[in-house]
């Protein structure tokens, strides 16, 4: 591994505003791996909430801003599958075919990686030397699994954490019912889907549910807490930084 490597981090807006501890874990993790991180201070949001709700003009504003801030980076790493999917697969479609902005979007889309994808596929690291005593289950987030094809990478990383036992839940690949604004616009449907997910997590009898997207985890945590469950949510960066 190149010890003098520098990567640029895109911190998902939910991590920045609601789960700063995940960002801190991410930084600790890369420090541990001897990789220096660059975190542009003017970054905000990738625009996915607007895009998924249909507001493309507004999403484009976020996309242009993201491209301008991150296009000078060599490698962009982000602790969220759905944000990476947004940048990788939706940014190029936001701009007219052949336009300079589309070219810039494509260039950025080629160098962004989701955290576990970057660790396992690019750095070829499956054991980060982490230690965590407990039983965990892994939730596959939709865009990470289906649009980026990442399923094995996080599992391999978890399997190598000392003291951690990975218990597969039933239907881990099923949606948690978050879906961005869907969760507040259609709370009944969102809740019904989430109930099933939380039931499956509870049935796995674990100490924590691990995931690569804090948005799904936030949704799951919301119901676990309402049900007064002892099961904690854990972003994979937090587990790997232990």
């Amino acid at each position: 591994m190149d010890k003098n490597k520098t990567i640029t981090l895109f911190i998902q807006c939910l991590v920045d505003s609601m789960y700063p501890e995940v960002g801190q874990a991410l930084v600790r993790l890369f420090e541990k791996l001897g990789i220096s991180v660059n975190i542009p201070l003017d970054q905000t949001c990738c625009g996915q909430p607007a895009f998924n709700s249909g507001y493309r003009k507004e999403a484009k504003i976020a996309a242009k801003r993201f491209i301008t801030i991150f296009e000078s980076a060599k490698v962009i790493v982000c602790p969220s599958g759905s944000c990476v999917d947004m940048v990788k697969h939706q940014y190029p479609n936001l701009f007219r075919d052949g336009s300079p902005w589309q070219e810039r979007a494509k260039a950025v889309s080629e160098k962004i990686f989701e955290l576990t994808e970057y660790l396992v596929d690019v750095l070829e690291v499956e054991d980060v030397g982490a230690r965590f005593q407990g039983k965990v289950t892994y939730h596959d987030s939709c865009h990470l699994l289906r649009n980026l094809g990442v399923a094995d990478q996080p599992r391999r990383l978890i399997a190598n954490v000392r003291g951690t036992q990975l218990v597969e839940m039933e239907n881990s690949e099923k949606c948690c019912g978050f879906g961005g604004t869907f969760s507040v616009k259609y709370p009944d449907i969102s809740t019904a889907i989430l109930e099933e997910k939380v039931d499956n997590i509870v049935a796995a009898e674990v100490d924590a549910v691990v995931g690569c997207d804090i948005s799904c985890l936030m949704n799951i945590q919301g119901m676990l807490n309402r049900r007064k469950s002892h099961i904690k949510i854990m972003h994979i960066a937090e587990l790997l930084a232990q």
Partner: protein
Amino acid sequence: MAEINTESYKQNAVKAIKDTVLQNALSNVQDRLGPATALAYENLPEGPELRLKAHKIREFAINNLDILLETLVDKIRDRGGKVFFAQDAAQATDYCLKVAQKNRVKMVVKGKSMVTEEIGLNKVLEANRIEVNETDLGEYIIQLAGEPPSHIIAPAIHKTRKQVAELFTKELGIPYCEDPPFLTQAARKALREKFLKADMGFSGCNLACAETGHITTVSNEGNIRMSTTMPKIHMVFMGMERVVAKLEDHDVLFRLLSRGAAAQNMAGYVSYIGGPRTENQLDGPEEFHLVILDNGRSKILADPEFREVLLCIRCAACLNVCPAYGKIGGHTYGYPYSGPIGAVITPLFVGINRAKDLCQGEPLCGACKKACPVDIDLPRMLLALRAKLADGDCKWNVTRASRMEKLLFMTWSLVIRNRTFYNIALKTGAMLQKFLPGQNGMITQMPFGFKGWTRSRDIVPLAKTNFLTLWKNKKP
């Protein structure tokens, strides 16, 4: 025309979620068929990649639809079949009624057909005192119950065997029994009489073949063969997109259709029908009519953004994996087409504003695309529909669905474009949230548009200091 109740999506969803019988039925069908179909794709000799080839075949057909339809129609007419192009539901049902009345038809039998649901054929015939008998077991059950289908290929999936037993006891006068073979036998006996007496038979068309000039039907009960060969007249209803160029295309598509629909290698019965019976044939109808239905399809064909949805072969594989369909069931969609395919095609048929909840009311998880035997990108089209609702659209006559939401996202776009504004917004939020009720370090009740979230779950508050500020302060 089918009844349109797409506006009641939210209320229907709540009702469906509370219906425990329905919830069990939906879990059963999804647990049984979803994984089995995925496995069936894996076990294809060509692997799941065959779906991409099927996509190309269907894409070619849709891009050459005019030529393929003309070839098909010429061949059918050469064999003495009659073909009618119906622009809309009314034209299709009018034509059907005219043929039925001319032949003094009193009773008809039907093979399962979603297109006839779309045009509301049964109602029109019944209003004209023609007895209609559905002969697919599932369709027969819901016809007796007076309900619309809740699944594209398993229309009575919402009914338990107990409900069917009660229904059959009441409607067929048989002793109460919950044994499925007994119930099937009872339906079979009742339907046999109808097949023998029917003056006219109806079927849909799974996929016509232009090269040979045949329509095809696929079934597992043999009822479509009976419906199409016993009565004197056979009338086929076919969506204008349901044709492919060559016979060899059917090999790929029917193997995938059977896997997508029921995780089968091949359906029990596949029939190729090209016209009325010829002089030297003993069986088959004397008259053969093919009704090719547009009903909004040309408009979809003309729009590059949505043309892809015409590739669909209506196998319902997307329903069997959709987390939203799995909770709300088919009736919630308020139109014959339900699930992810319904969420895209229904707004295009009945009006995007009118059916806005269908394309907005699901979480965009992408499972439908992976399950589709012809690899249709339904999530892409759901997003495209949402974009039309967000800002309005002339071509599809869409008006902006929510000014409030637009205003919110415009404000959002102002805030995210400047980190200083963004930090101020975060600080303000962190201050205001102190007034919200909480427990265990989490907010238990959110205000305004976020109320829905905290009906069933809590949420962590905004951090006192956000990550980027922490990072900035830490850096030397």
